[in-house]
């Protein structure tokens, strides 16, 4: 029996604007929120939405991401007929070795994987967004409209709209036009890069697109315009809630800071039971020393805090020495801050040792990234 829906997460990008943070790991594997990696969000959303077959398409630095995702056990995707499958760009029979040339090409190269599950619908996701979303509700909307493609959209401000792919819609929510980063936006409905396709249609268009030598093999640039031209049924599905593309050092920092003020991303499941699942680390509870002071911060297990921490996010096994001061900062796993060091408005990458004489970014105008990979 086929699956009703299979999810495919595009996780191959490097995310160059994250600079040194992605020097050795793919963007979806970048740490976020004190204990997570970015890809935990789409994977947990899948698990919570009742989707139990998830393909994870990898390319850049695929080993760490692949071992992290594993068989999907961390997200409970490990039942008898359930899994997370790593789908790297690879050598294929009759074709040879190829890279993923674009988002659509990545899915095209995995048609045989999809055929194996014979799904009615395919959910395409991006591996680098922070949000909580019930895809089951989006699927219900897709089915109700009898759509060929449903695109999740976020209502952004008019100013922001020129940074996104914008969906121009009719009153009934059907899409009549797609504009990539328009100078003069006609609408403020920004594509979130989340698509539900009726698989029969998707398959047809992917095969047609693969034959087109002039195509960039991209969903936004090629597949959606082609479907619009053919008068296929495309609908926008409006999502309300916290959603963030953490594409830059600044936005990654900001998204971490947002967690301190409950900006709609409810990690503590106060409004809705929607857990974000993640790796369990072998660490002791956090130990707070006699002279410590922690305010307005997130601290996770394995940390030892003896100094002052304010408005910051501390990941696993961070050590803060006595008299050290950490303000408005994100400290990735294993960061060691020696006695008396000071850190302001910075992201400190995994495993960095901040020496006791160091004062980082005292001016605190822009976010400073400190990494051994710089």
């Amino acid at each position, binding site marked *: 029996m086929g699956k009703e829906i299979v999810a495919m997460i595009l996780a191959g990008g490097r995310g160059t604007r994250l600079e040194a943070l992605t020097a050795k790991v793919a963007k979806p594997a970048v740490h976020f929120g004190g204990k997570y990696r970015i890809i935990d969000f789409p994977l947990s959303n899948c698990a919570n939405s009742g989707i139990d077959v998830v393909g994870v398409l990898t390319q850049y630095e695929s080993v760490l991401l692949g071992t992290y995702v594993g068989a999907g056990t961390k997200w409970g995707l490990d039942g008898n007929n359930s899994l997370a499958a790593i789908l790297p760009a690879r050598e294929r029979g009759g074709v040879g070795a190829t890279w993923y040339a674009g988002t659509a090409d990545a899915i095209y190269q995995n048609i045989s994987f999809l055929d194996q599950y014979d799904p009615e619908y395919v959910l395409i996701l991006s591996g680098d967004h922070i949000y909580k979303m019930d895809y089951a509700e989006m699927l219900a909307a897709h089915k109700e409209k009898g759509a060929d493609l449903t695109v999740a959209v976020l209502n952004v401000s008019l100013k922001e709209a020129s940074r996104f792919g914008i969906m121009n819609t009719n009153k009934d929510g059907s899409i009549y036009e797609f504009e990539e980063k328009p100078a003069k936006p006609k609408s403020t409905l920004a594509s979130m890069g989340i698509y539900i396709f009726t698989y029969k249609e998707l398959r047809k268009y992917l095969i047609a697109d693969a034959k087109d030598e002039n195509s960039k093999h991209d969903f936004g640039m090629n597949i959606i315009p082609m479907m619009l031209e053919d008068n296929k049924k495309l609908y926008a599905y409006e999502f309300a809630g916290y959603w963030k593309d953490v594409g830059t050092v600044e936005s990654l920092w900001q998204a971490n800071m947002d967690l301190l003020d409950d900006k709609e991303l409810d990690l503590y499941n106060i409004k809705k039971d929607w857990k*974000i699942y993640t790796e*369990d680390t*072998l660490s*002791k509870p956090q130990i707070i*020393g006699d002279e410590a*002071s922690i305010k*307005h911060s997130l601290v996770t297990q394995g940390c030892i805090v003896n100094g002052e921490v304010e408005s910051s996010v501390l990941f696993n096994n961070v050590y803060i020495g006595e008299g050290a001061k950490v303000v408005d900062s994100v400290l990735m796993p294993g960061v060691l801050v020696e006695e008396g060091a000071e850190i302001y408005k910075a992201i400190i990458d995994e495993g960095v040792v901040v020496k006791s004489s160091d004062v980082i970014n005292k001016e605190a105008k822009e976010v400073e990234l400190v990494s051994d990979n710089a």
Partner: protein
Amino acid sequence: MAKVVGYINLHSDISYKGLTERRPVASVSFLGRYGIIDFVLSNMSNSNVDTVGILIKEKPRSLFKHLGNGNSWNFNSKSGGVSLLYNEKYANSPMYNHDINNIVENIAFLEKSKADYVVIAPAHIITTMNYAEVVDAHAKSGAEITMVYQKINNADEAFVGSDFLRLKGKQVMEIKNNKGNRKERNMSLETYIINKKTLLKLIQYAQKISSFFNLRDTLAYLCDERKIMAYEYKGFARCIDSYEAYYKVSMEFLDMDISTQVFKSTWPIFTNTNDTPPTKYLKNACVKKSFVANGAIIDGEVDGCILSRNVTIGKNAVVKNCIILNGSKVCAGAHLENVIIDKDAHVEKKTELIGEDEPLYVREGDVV
């Protein structure tokens, strides 16, 4: 290392007052994110004992939930794993509900094992013992039975009611109850290495002497006629044998010199995951000298405490020298000192609770 199979022996008369009213000692929350049993299970796992039977005495529900399929303790899920051994037949007969009857009732576990040696250890004595070293010493000694002990000099306070060993060289001559009348004792850590064949004979022999005889009674009965070796363990050991000891040992861990003896990178303590978010410290938080698990939300003053997962400390609440278990909520302005709050309890606004001689106990789910 020789092939070894493990038993975790939960048959004992120990209880922690209200904390063990509805759960066994083994699954009582400890140090914020562990269950008491995690320490002995981790020792088994770290010692490469990958097949472990848990001799469950009573109240198994929370233990079943905690252990799941045993994956969290790193046992190979195909070749090894955790077996939950429960003696339904004698569950309601206290005199018969002992370790030997449990082993007999679940004899298939032992008979099917291809192990040469059996290591038996309790959950309530917290150690970081490497059983592989003990088994090596046992094998070299040529003895069929080895008992592990620790030489202590506070036997008037700790391990009272436990057994001590009277030794002659490295041999156990007598097993006696510690009445707390002397400081220096060789305390039994209730950890035994027994050849598998010997154990199979021992349990039959025990039943012939008395149906009420448990493993400890049998060894005590036998030690003047059979050669039982003593193995001295010099590492960390604490016996959590009462409500008071639970509180005292927990608080001892807030001293870094103590906790670093147990939390070593070479000897991980495993537990199951709950996917709780990091702990959130709000603007009025003031936390000192404490252990804090994930998922807590803190806006008050916390000093000398152990907070488990998903605990809430409201604005301007003051919490000193307390142990607060999973999901409990201390509302704004409450003042708690020397209190143990069980899971999912609710301390209303401005409530004052102060434990005097022994820590005050608030039951699971209570509203106070």
